[in-house]
């Protein structure tokens, strides 16, 4: 019977082609191959987010008078609710962490080189969207930290010349952060961003599939010189099984973190209360936050904030366009780009640590 069903489907969908593709797909094997796993781990954590997010959606209620209480309900009354929420929070943070690891590994191995510029750009867009997920999801429990983080975050968006102010009002659903902001962020978080991210992931994976895996420039030069030196492993089952192992490890780490360090809920947001001492944004915004903090309030004729926001925006844009500065010859990679990537990594880590330690 199974064979008959397969034949029926095969006639209509051409499954043979897909199977042949899987059989022939290979992944290059060299001493840096393990970096190939990190995109997959990010994808796995995204899958966890979708599943746990849907589960949370069963009980969560957006709205200034209900949100905090409904999360409280999830964490105390719903069976395994605390665990699901903890996994959702931890997985979100790990996903962003691994997206950064993936990005820097691609930058160091120069995998963004021609013909993979578009893969890099869609990847960067994915990172921005994922940070948008983080920012919007952070507000949903409607606790004090989230309230002020959103206040400051949207205020920073408001610093952008000309479009900033309307953008801030659009994000907040008014002049201030209120219940209207919460329902809006909820909409972004569960409907708008998932739609965008779905399309971007599809394009990103299609490009990866279409172009194959990149090989580091040095290895590529060696392999071009001596084609017999080239080593590949089959995608299926060899690489897929290894990737499964990586996912398995990620799942173990995630489960352990979520169970041993359950995510805090904090206290309910008080719109008229003052910001608590030691307030900080989520770690993945910390390096930008710290940068803004260090810029004096006036630089020459510009407001420090405006300068910081424009500077960060410009740096981000240059980073997105990184592939277009790279040489097309793998034998002559641009050295200054390596330097830039190292600088970026040190800067992000350094500023994050500084921001974490600073009061």
């Amino acid at each position: 019977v199974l064979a008959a069903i397969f034949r029926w489907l095969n006639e209509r969908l051409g499954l043979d082609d897909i199977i042949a593709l899987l059989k022939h797909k290979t992944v290059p094997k060299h001493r840096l191959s393990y970096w190939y796993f990190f995109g997959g781990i990010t994808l796995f954590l995204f899958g966890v987010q979708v599943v746990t997010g849907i589960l949370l959606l069963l009980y969560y209620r957006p709205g200034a008078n209900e949100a905090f209480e409904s999360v409280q309900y999830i964490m105390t009354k719903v069976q395994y609710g605390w665990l699901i929420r903890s996994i959702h929070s931890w997985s979100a943070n790990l996903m962003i962490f691994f997206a950064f690891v993936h990005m820097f590994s691609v930058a160091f191995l120069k995998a963004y080189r021609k013909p993979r510029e578009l893969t890099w750009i869609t990847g960067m867009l994915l990172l921005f969207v994922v940070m948008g997920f983080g920012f919007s999801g952070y507000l949903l429990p409607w606790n004090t930290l989230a309230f002020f983080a959103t206040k400051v975050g949207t205020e920073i968006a408001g610093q952008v010349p000309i479009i900033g102010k309307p953008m801030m009002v659009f994000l907040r659903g008014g002049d201030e952060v209120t219940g209207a902001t919460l329902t809006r962020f909820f909409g972004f978080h569960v409907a708008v961003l998932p739609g965008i991210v779905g399309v971007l992931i599809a394009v990103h994976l299609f490009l990866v599939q279409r172009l194959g895996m990149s090989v580091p420039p040095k290895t590529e030069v060696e392999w071009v010189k001596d084609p017999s030196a080239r080593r590949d492993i089959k995608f299926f089952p060899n690489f897929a099984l290894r990737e499964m192992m990586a996912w398995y490890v990620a799942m173990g780490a995630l489960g352990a973190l979520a169970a041993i360090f359950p995510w805090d809920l904090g206290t309910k947001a008080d719109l008229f209360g003052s910001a608590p001492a030691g307030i900080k944004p989520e770690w993945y915004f910390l390096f930008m936050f710290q940068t803004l903090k260090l810029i004096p309030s006036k630089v020459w004729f510009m407001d420090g904030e405006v300068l910081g926001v424009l500077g960060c925006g410009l740096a981000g844009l240059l980073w997105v366009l990184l592939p277009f500065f790279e040489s097309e010859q793998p034998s002559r990679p641009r050295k200054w780009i390596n330097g830039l990537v190292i600088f970026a990594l040190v800067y992000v880590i350094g500023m994050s640590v500084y921001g974490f330690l600073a009061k």
Partner: protein
Amino acid sequence: LAADGTYHALSATCTHLGCTVQYRADMGEVWCACHNGTYGIDGRNISGPPPRPLDVFDVHVRGDEIYVSRKREA
């Protein structure tokens, strides 16, 4: 209530990025937790990122009642 016995009323919205500030008796200053900005009791921005002083309100004490009103521009 300042040391000299006069009352001051300030906007609680930080001029930097709009956090809600608090009065710190231990520092004798108005402090914003978000970015470590401080203001004097008169609203003057003393240190940290705030670009300008806090908005100041007029305070009048009549008997037991305290009236806080928008500053009249001269």
